[in-house]
């Protein structure tokens, strides 16, 4: 599965066609059950997985203890406001620690926002502009209340697209702040020499480009520069970058149970890419991709762990004072 966007000779953009279709289906109550639930939880509770603020706080506390670094919340005037996806809060707490380490090393001020910690925009996934707008507005309100310069989208494809490209159009006015993907921010730090790492990964690594980040987001070079900073044995899969093949869960297939068969079938393409380079580990920068990839790798009994790029970078940041 590779979006038609990249190849259609007459310039059809299938994504927008599907979006229009979803708009109608969702408004008429015909969206898949699973995704309806996710939207419901995001709107009422604040997160598609039902994570509430106390859970985030508990997580913050754990990370603060583990890393010995403060995790600021609602710090007005901070340069960066960091968003999380539920996936990271529940499954990948390392992400928060990684951010703390990186920001600390770069000497940047940053904060979480108590009214807008969840980046995932389930409204956009279900294809409903009104709900998507509601969810984006929470982030905009939070960012403007805290007067931050930049909002950082987590390693989550949809969250990034919803905020970076759709957000301003949803609320009908340009943002007063910038929106960046964490990989973009890391790339900037790297360029500015604010990202100092030590040691190298020596096993064979490859990188899976999330479609929302690369093909639909324009972030392609940064992740490669970052990979090369910490990995000795980084190999590219065939078709990597702009023309990369989907994890199998793109276009919302990961958000619904009915999509499982499709995901497994589509993963064959990914498998052929992986078989071509036979990596020891697979690095990516999208929590959604990560889960779908893991599901696929398990199904095809491939023993390739999947890791997030941000965490991997963080692991190479020297301990403070060390």
């Amino acid at each position: 599965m590779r979006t038609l966007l990249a190849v259609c000779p007459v310039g059809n953009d299938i994504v927008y066609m599907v979006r229009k279709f979803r708009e109608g289906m969702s408004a008429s109550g015909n969206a898949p059950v699973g995704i309806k639930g996710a939207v419901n939880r995001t709107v009422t509770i604040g997160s598609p997985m039902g994570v509430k603020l106390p859970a985030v706080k508990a997580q913050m506390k754990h990370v603060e203890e583990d890393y010995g670094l403060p995790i600021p919340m609602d710090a007005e005037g901070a340069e960066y406001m960091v968003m999380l996806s539920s996936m990271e809060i529940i499954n990948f707490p390392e992400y928060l620690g990684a951010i703390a380490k990186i920001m600390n090393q770069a000497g940047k001020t940053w904060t979480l926002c108590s009214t807008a910690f969840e980046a995932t925009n389930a409204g956009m996934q279900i294809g409903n502009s009104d709900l998507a707008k509601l969810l984006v507005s929470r982030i905009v309100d939070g960012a403007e209340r805290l007067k931050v310069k930049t909002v950082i989208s987590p390693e989550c494809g949809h969250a990034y697209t919803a905020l970076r490209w759709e957000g301003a159009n949803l609320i009908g006015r340009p943002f007063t702040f910038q929106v960046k993907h964490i990989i973009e921010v890391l790339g900037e730090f790297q360029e500015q020499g604010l990202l100092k790492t030590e040691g190298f990964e020596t096993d064979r690594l490859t990188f899976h480009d999330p479609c929302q980040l690369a093909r639909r987001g324009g972030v392609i070079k940064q992740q490669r520069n970052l990979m090369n900073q910490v990995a000795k044995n980084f190999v590219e899969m065939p078709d990597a970058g702009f023309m990369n093949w989907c994890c199998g869960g793109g276009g919302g297939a990961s958000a619904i149970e009915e999509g499982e068969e499709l995901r497994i079938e589509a993963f064959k393409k990914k498998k052929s890419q992986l078989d071509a380079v036979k990596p020891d580990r697979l690095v990516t920068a999208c929590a959604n991709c990560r889960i779908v990839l893991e599901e696929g790798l398990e199904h095809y009994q491939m023993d390739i762990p999947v890791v997030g790029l941000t965490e991997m970078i963080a692991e190479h940041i020297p301990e403070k004072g060390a």
Partner: protein
Amino acid sequence: MQGPLIDTLARQGVTRRTFFKYCATLASLMALPPSAGRAMAEAMAASPAAVKRPSVIWLPFQECTGCTESITRSHSPTIEGLIFDAISLDYQETLMAAAGHQAEEALHKAMKDNEGKYLLIVDGSIPLGLDGAYSCIAGKSNLETLKEVAKGAAAIVAMGSCAAFGGIPKANPNPTGAVSVSDVIKDKPIINIPGCPPIPVVMTGVLAHFLTFGSLPEMDSKGRPKAFYGETIHDRCYRRPFYDQGKFAKTFDDEGARKGWCLFELGCKGPVTYNACATVKWNGGTSWPVESGHGCLGCSEPDFWDAGGFYKALSMPADPLKMVSAAAAVGAAAGVAVSFANRAKKSAAKAGHETTTLADLEK
């Protein structure tokens, strides 16, 4: 006139070699392979000359006498004349000495004496308008005459495009209601020799066939002898190679025209015209329209007069495109109207949009 034809000819001073030469040429004209010329010559030479020359009646209707002119130009004293000596032309208004009642008598005598055996040649179309009053001979409409004379004919030759297809009299708006012979007569073998005028040798070729084989030659779907009308002017045109090379005269006096390039763009109808001009040529093989620098008019095809203009290339529109500007205007108007409607619909939808809520998802 008894004995083989060749003896008859010999008595008229025609040697066997002359006859064979004629047959070779005739075969070439009839687009038959060279070997056929010899076979034809052998067959004709050996065949007994008819005891009695077949009677031929020639009826002129709405015509210009061009066909007769064409035939007579080839008539005497050429070898074709010999073929004519082999027939008895019993009625031909232009050529016969008789006139008035005598002529009518000759016609009726020939019809009576040769009933069921005479060959009827018709040139000119038959007007049906005003009960045929547009053209009458001896107080009878052409329609009446044709029906009467055709009754006893063995076969009919429709000479020229008028008799064969209605010709120029039938051109839009066809004021006289002109039709062809085959539109009127349905129960007799009819052979069409169209052309405006037809090539003389085609006429003599058909007669030669009738005399030697006693039948009409093989015909195409339009009733024309295949031997002469089997291929298009274009296919046998000596300028064809220039067409294939994409070399065209753009005007009648440009460089291309002087170099003899293809006249397609000047409106030549050669590609859709079936006739033998390109090989037979006119005026004793002197030249023919395309060789003298003018495109083919398509005169041996039905309705050539109304086929979209003589100087318009075949690939050009036959009529002025009247609808185009109107259609463009209507299209533009429709486009603008629909655009406004779309915009109105869009703003109405925007104005009437009820914010969807979670409840809507569960509808």
